[in-house]
């Protein structure tokens, strides 16, 4: 197996910076975030979970999807502008999240903006070694990973074992003389989860309990703030707004993150709202992850990263909802 000694990690990142915009976990106050790397020494690969997921690097919080000039002939432009990006330090759950995003954005009428960013990206993951109190990836089967990365690092004290997941990954390892051939290093098995759910027949069970009063209990506590949506690595919904110059000569169309727990998400022209109460909106988000998405794409729409449980100001915990519904 190829290995990379930790003392060589900085040199490796410096080499990557020659060809890529490099993003990796860094410490921010008491927590961790994915951020652009100026100094390779800022990179931290032993971390619990980042505050925000890595989705913003493929699906920015706000992006222009159309620009136009209204002259004699109307000029239209809808072209993604992307740069080569290398994401280092993604945990298996966050790589699974990108695979879920791919299912939603690339399997039918591929989204050209997302697709361009995904194609121009290199993913170097790292196996997580210690779940935090909110994680339930062990239950979702996302604590380990078999695809979706170029390289995967296995922490082994003074060095990393390197799993190669793609041709690009292999070329990278072969082109940089920092990697050595040594004995196989085993992947860690995560233990000590505080939160667990039983996923057996879960999509069907959740639908059967569609009218369960438990939904109202949690729905009434929901503030509809949308934090759960914005930190979620798989929430891919968006809204669109039009912006023009004051004389209507030119304009642009921007999409930005939206969320089904927000009040007006299902509102229609003329004043109707298909989800007028908070319970129906919370239920939409949870059922989409655990029933609707699996029915459509075959996998759970949740990776068990636990971020939504961590940030909810009302202590709404999807594992608790599931466990109460399962009884």
């Amino acid at each position, binding site marked *: 197996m190829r290995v990379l000694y930790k003392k060589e990690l900085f040199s490796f990142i410096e080499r990557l910076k020659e060809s890529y915009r490099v993003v990796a976990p860094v410490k921010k106050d008491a927590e961790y975030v994915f951020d652009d790397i100026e100094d390779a020494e800022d990179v931290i690969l032993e971390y619990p979970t980042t505050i925000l997921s890595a989705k913003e690097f493929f699906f920015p919080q706000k992006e222009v999807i159309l620009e*136009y000039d*209204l002259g004699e002939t109307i000029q239209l432009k*809808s072209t993604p502008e992307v740069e080569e990006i290398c994401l280092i330090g993604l945990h298996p759950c966050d790589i699974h999240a990108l695979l879920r995003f791919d299912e939603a954005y690339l399997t039918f009428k591929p989204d050209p903006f997302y697709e361009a960013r995904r194609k121009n990206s290199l993913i170097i993951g790292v196996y997580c070694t210690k779940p935090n109190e909110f994680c339930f990836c062990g239950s979702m089967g996302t604590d380990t990973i078999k695809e979706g990365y170029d390289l995967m690092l296995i922490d082994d004290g003074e060095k990393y074992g390197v799993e190669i997941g793609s041709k690009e990954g292999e070329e990278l390892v072969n082109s940089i003389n920092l990697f050595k051939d040594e004995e196989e290093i085993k992947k860690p098995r995560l233990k000590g989860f505080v939160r667990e759910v039983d996923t057996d027949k879960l999509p069907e069970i959740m639908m059967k309990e569609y009218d369960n009063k438990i939904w109202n209990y949690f729905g009434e506590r929901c503030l509809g703030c949308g934090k759960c949506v914005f930190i979620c690595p798989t929430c891919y*919904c*968006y809204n669109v707004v039009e912006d023009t110059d004051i004389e209507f000569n030119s304009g642009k*169309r921007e999409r930005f993150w939206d969320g089904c727990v927000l009040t007006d998400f*299902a509102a229609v*022209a003329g004043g109707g709202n298909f989800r007028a109460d908070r319970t129906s909106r919370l239920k939409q988000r949870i059922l989409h992850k655990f029933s609707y998405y699996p*029915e*459509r794409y075959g996998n759970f729409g949740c990776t068990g990263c636990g971020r939504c449980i961590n940030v909810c100001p009302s202590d709404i915990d999807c594992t608790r909802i599931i466990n109460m519904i399962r009884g």
Partner: protein
Amino acid sequence: MDKELYLPRIAILKNKMDETPDTSTFTFILPEGGNLNHIPGQCLQLTVFGYGEAPISITSSPTQKDYFQLCVRNVGNVTSALHRLDIGDKVGIRGPWGNGFPIDRLKGKNAVFVAGGLGLAPLRSLINYIVDKRDDYGKVWILSGARTPKDHLFRSEWNRWNSIDGFEVLTTVDRADDTWNGNVGVVGSLLYKTDIQVENTMAFICGPPIMFRFVTIDLKKLGFADDVIISTLERHMKCGVGKCGHCNVGSKYVCVDGPVFTYEEMKKQPEAL
């Protein structure tokens, strides 16, 4: 094509005809000629530059080769901007998208159309498709209801439809006025005012959700099966391509899996009914 998923193409406003005080039928041509080659029941995303996009059903039949029509109520930001456009102005369109009505399944069968208000707009595409492909389809009943006589759409076409062999048009209003001496009452009541054949017939319902519920009860009473009761779902689609999530209903996206669903399919999805 997929590279241009969010890039509208241009259409030119050719004609505008007022249907009701707040609803008009807009006729567009494509600069390159031709039509949209759509399936009756499909939608498109209409851009009024400077205002944004709105999902609109196509009201003309694809058998009209030189233009397409949208029947739009002045109800929101984009639609009111559309109503202010002048002939010759350019708009953007993306689509047509969605599944459309099951025109192949309907072949050789009869069709009963039940429309409430603006619901006649998407149905008109299929009605005029049948008119132009008369030999492929059986009898046609068109039942249309509106709040008041002036809220009825496509009144200028009633006589033409009624004169076609095998076609029957029945209309009603919730509230009559001096100009109206026809039926008064809900549109579902028209089902009992004529001899509608249930066997080998498909029912197409478009209108407000409450009307759909009552008409479905009537159709069930008459003996229509769940898989021949067909309707469209209305949701606010932002993208039209199954991404933005706004039209999500259960495991379906109205923009790509719909907007046409059978009653049987709707019953399987929470929130559809």
